[in-house]
């Protein structure tokens, strides 16, 4: 009885953990994303604190990295004359950062390196804690985080990387950015307005105009007055509106990408937890047959019996969810650390548990617990009263058990169909993703349903080396693992989910890497690749610098922007130098196209990429109109069609001259160079790196091989985060194995007593439990491997158009199997100890 209580407590705790961790992930996701959005709200609220009206260029549509045509500087004076304006000032925005001792001061993670020209009071958000705002040409202010990181002090002479190269500047002051606790990793350097105009190619222009109202004039009223004097290419909003809109832009990204992605991992963890709860309750119902039968003989109704099971699930679920919700705070912290370690630092501080978070996390946790226990609860109602008196009574087989394989087949087929439909189908991306997720869940459930049919053969296979190692323990472990195939199958299936997704990610990433490096090998005819740090656009001057390096035969850069095509949609536009590009970069022509077409790439000519061609119904001989976000339009005729799913993807290639007809920007997204034959290539590389990074420190200069390695390491960084998130599911399934083992050992107490009596040593007993655990975990690993590879295969086939190939990383998969063994060994530690500790006499007489 006493031992029974203890087992029950342990079982409840282990079951609780299954749900607790998933709930913690949900709660942690909300805590983390709330924290991030709050940080950005703060940052933008601070940015626009003293600003009543913001005048900015009108944008026809949002485009990433696009350079918007700036406003005329003369508009500042026009606005100053509007009644009610106290202060109006232009501001130049650009990207660039300090260069200290030849080193570019990089923002943390993916945050941008920002340059904002100085603003007069009360518009300026910065509060100078040391020195003063830049007053003379050549002076800059620096935000305190950046000053700390770069270790610069007031009065120090440093460089500022700008569009026109590195400018010598003196730090005139260090400012704090209002109340915002962090700049989300961004760096901010503040030059004077006139300097910024010169350095960022904005003479006579301004990126925006910021206005403060006189006392007694409301922001809304002033905005209306200002709007009335604006030309057609400008628009006015209140400062508050701007803050909200800017924050919303980032919040939307977090709510539409980061949050759902993290919640998906929480969902995986909960699915694993659901398997474990289902299994635990199935086992305990089977073990409680006599008790349940007795309840029935005492007059308990089926409904009461069902509630006795559901009630326990409800209680365990509620307690676990409550702890899990609170643990979300801890999980959010762990996520911060994990993202940081992977090179994606997440900004923000001051965590809070919103009421919404608590409600969602609690509800999901409790609902999942109860739903998972529902099936076992229904089975419990089918226990006949006779079970109370009959020794060795067994639970009646579920009525529909014989349909299980058919249902599983249906689930698997439906699941895979959903995944494929999500990949290649049309329609809303969110809906298709949800469909794919549901499809994956169905496949996992289907495999879990039929896994018991492979338990015996797999146990035999996996147990073979164990029997060689230790005949007795190995044999018994194998028999124990396969005596309740359903139990072992569901336990293993819980692990299968985590392993399956890890394998899927690994195989998919391997294909992704292979396809990208393959594409680099195919397309890159040069030797050196220049990109902006964090793949931001970089000044076109880098091209001339690279060309002038002795030993460089040719260098050619590609401009990038996005345009509306014939008034709708958004496609990529690449601006190239037709004379030099084919010498450093090759594209795959369709039809009878050849590189000779570059000779005909006049300012009104374009090549169309295959994907854009088919999605827009455009082909050689057709004409289209491209419109920039600033509203400039030009017409092009298509003279060639090519395919490049990796670099110049889904859009059009035009000449620099053609690009300039639509876009004002000249920044490059990509620059490649070829080294002349016969020279010392390594020396040329070295010189090229020195020259370019000295003049344009915001760039990375790499050889093709280094470029490939960089891409791979970025994918690896992302993999690290994904693995860390999936590790949670694997950890949960470890607890599942522990739980099943503990329950089984309790059930087999008398057997263990007998075994000990007839000569099984404690060591052999521990080994037996460990072997059983490893057999279970390796079955999970093997199933996971199979499902993961299948998913990756379906996925890569579906994305063949994107150039992703199917490639299996055998070594890695081998490592995952070894890890499955480790999981088994870890899971066995506690149960093996419990089994070995049983006293022989107590065990033999255990009821």
């Amino acid at each position: 009885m006493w031992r029974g209580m203890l087992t029950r407590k342990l079982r409840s705790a282990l079951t609780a953990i299954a749900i607790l961790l998933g709930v913690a992930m949900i709660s942690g996701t909300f805590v983390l994303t709330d924290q991030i959005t709050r940080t950005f709200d703060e940052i933008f609220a601070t940015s626009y604190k003293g600003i009543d009206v913001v005048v900015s260029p009108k944008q026809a549509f949002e485009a990433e990295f696009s350079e918007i045509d700036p406003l005329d500087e003369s508009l500042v004076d026009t606005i100053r004359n509007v009644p009610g304006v106290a202060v109006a000032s232009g501001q130049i925005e650009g990207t660039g950062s300090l260069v200290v001792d030849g080193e570019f001061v990089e923002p943390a993670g993916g945050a941008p390196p920002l340059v904002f020209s100085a603003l007069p009071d009360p518009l300026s958000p910065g509060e100078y804690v040391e020195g003063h705002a830049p007053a003379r040409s050549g002076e800059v202010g620096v935000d305190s985080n950046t000053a700390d990181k770069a270790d610069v002090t007031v009065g120090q002479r440093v460089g500022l990387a700008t569009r026109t190269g590195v400018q010598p500047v003196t730090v005139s002051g260090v400012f704090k950015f209002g109340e915002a606790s962090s700049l989300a990793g961004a760096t901010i350097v503040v030059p004077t307005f006139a300097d910024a105009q010169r350095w960022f190619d904005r003479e006579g222009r301004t990126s925006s105009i910021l206005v403060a109202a006189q006392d007694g004039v409301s922001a809304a009223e002033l905005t209306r007055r200002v709007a009335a004097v604006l030309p057609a290419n400008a628009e006015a909003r209140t400062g508050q509106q701007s803050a909200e809109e800017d924050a919303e832009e980032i919040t939307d990204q977090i709510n539409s990408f980061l949050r759902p992605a993290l919640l998906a991992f929480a969902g995986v963890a909960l699915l694993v937890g659901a398997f474990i709860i289902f299994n635990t309750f199935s086992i305990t119902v089977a073990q409680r047959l006599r008790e349940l039968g007795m309840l029935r003989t005492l007059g308990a109704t089926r409904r009461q019996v069902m509630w006795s099971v559901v009630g326990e699930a409800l209680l365990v679920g509620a307690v676990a969810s409550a702890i899990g919700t609170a643990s979300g705070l801890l999980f959010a912290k762990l996520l911060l650390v994990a993202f940081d370690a992977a090179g994606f630092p997440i900004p923000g501080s001051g965590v809070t548990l919103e009421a919404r978070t608590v409600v969602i996390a609690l509800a999901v946790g409790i609902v999942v617990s109860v739903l998972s226990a529902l099936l076992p609860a229904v089975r419990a109602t089918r226990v006949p009263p006779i079970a109370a008196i009959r020794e060795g009574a067994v639970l009646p087989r579920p009525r529909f058990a014989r349909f299980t394989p058919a249902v599983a087949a249906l689930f698997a087929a439906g699941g895979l169909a959903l995944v494929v439909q999500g990949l290649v189908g049309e329609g809303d991306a969110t809906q298709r993703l949800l469909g794919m997720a549901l499809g994956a869940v169905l496949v996992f459930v289907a495999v879990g349903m039929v896994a018991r049919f492979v338990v015996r053969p797999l146990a035999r296979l996996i147990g073979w080396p164990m029997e060689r190692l230790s005949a007795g323990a190995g044999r018994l472990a194998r028999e124990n693992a396969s005596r309740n195939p359903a139990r072992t199958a569901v336990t293993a299936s819980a692990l299968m989910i985590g392993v399956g997704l890890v394998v899927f990610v690994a195989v998919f990433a391997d294909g992704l890497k292979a396809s990208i490096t393959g594409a680099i090998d195919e397309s890159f005819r040069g030797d050196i690749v220049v990109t902006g740090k964090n793949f931001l656009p970089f000044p076109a001057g880098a091209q001339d610098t690279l060309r002038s390096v002795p030993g460089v035969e040719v260098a050619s850069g590609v401009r990038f922007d996005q345009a509306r095509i014939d008034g709708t949609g958004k496609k990529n536009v690449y601006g190239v130098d037709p004379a030099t590009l084919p010498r450093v970069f090759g594209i795959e022509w369709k039809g009878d196209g050849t590189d000779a077409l570059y000779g005909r790439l006049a300012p009104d000519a374009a090549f169309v990429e295959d994907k854009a061609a088919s999605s827009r119904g455009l082909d050689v001989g057709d004409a289209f109109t491209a419109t920039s976000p600033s509203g400039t339009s030009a017409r092009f005729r298509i003279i060639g069609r090519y395919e490049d799913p990796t670099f110049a993807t889904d859009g059009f290639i035009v000449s620099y001259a053609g690009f300039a007809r639509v876009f004002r920007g000249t920044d490059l997204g990509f620059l490649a160079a070829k080294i002349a034959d016969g020279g010392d290539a390594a020396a040329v590389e070295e010189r090229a790196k020195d020259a370019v990074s000295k003049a344009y420190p915001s760039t990375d200069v790499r050889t093709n091989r280094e470029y490939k390695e960089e891409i791979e390491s970025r994918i690896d960084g992302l993999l690290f985060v994904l693995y860390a998130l999936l590790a949670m599911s694997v950890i949960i399934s470890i607890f599942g194995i522990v739980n099943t083992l503990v329950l089984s050992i309790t059930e087999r107490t008398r057997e263990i007593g007998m075994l000990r009596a007839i000569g099984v040593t404690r060591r052999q007993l521990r080994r037996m439990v460990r072997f059983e655990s490893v057999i279970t975990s390796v079955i999970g690993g093997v199933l996971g491997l199979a499902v993961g590879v299948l998913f990756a295969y379906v996925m890569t086939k579906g994305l063949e158009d994107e150039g992703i190939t199917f490639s299996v990383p055998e070594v890695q998969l081998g490592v995952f199997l070894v890890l499955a063994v480790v999981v088994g060994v870890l899971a066995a530690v506690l149960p093996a100890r419990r089994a070995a500790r049983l006293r022989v006499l107590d065990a033999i007489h255990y009821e």
Partner: protein
Amino acid sequence: MQQATSNGTVVAAAAVTRRYGSGDAAVDALRGVTVNFPRGQFASVMGPSGSGKSTLLHILSGLDAPTSGSVTIDGVALQKLDDRALTLLRRKKVGFIFQSFNLLPMLSAEENVELPLTIAGEKADPEWIDEVMASVGLDDRRRHRPSELSGGQQQRVAIARALVSRPAVVFADEPTGNLDTRTGAEILDLLHRSVADLGQTVVMVTHDARAAAASDRVVFLQDGRVVQDKPGMQVGEVLDTIRSLE
């Protein structure tokens, strides 16, 4: 394999006491039992409930340790052995038969019989297995699982399992307790034959007078002491003795 001691004694207990608990709550299950079992004897231990007969069996078989006194099995003194050595001794020299059979449900009859050898990592000699299976009359049930066997058949499997490692002594704890009279008689007959044909030594705890009468010698316990130790008793005599003790 079996080392004979000078007087042919396989199991010897000298002044064995066993106290459970301590202080006022202490219970003395055995209060100084000295008893020897010679090789080739089918002995039974009887006594009313609480007499200490089960405790004696546990101590004699190395499943429990005496509070004082000594036990030797086949010349090996148990008190010096740690858990591992004791386990290995049981594996080699002791066979067990339990009231509730205690077979492994997932193994066939034959596999259950071979279990002690499997545990020891030994290869079963097929001829010996054939002989043991034949001697318990289960030649045609070798591939059956315990759930497919009757109670009597299951106990036969358990007996074969106890005999398979040719132990120095077989301890049987109420082997007929879960069986009907006729099946019980068959099992006793089987134990008897194992002593006669294979030269086994069997020590059986029972409260069934018929079972005791089937053995060569009956040791009576009362309140943790041996009160009578007599060979060749008849059923009536056993019953009389029991009545006199209660």
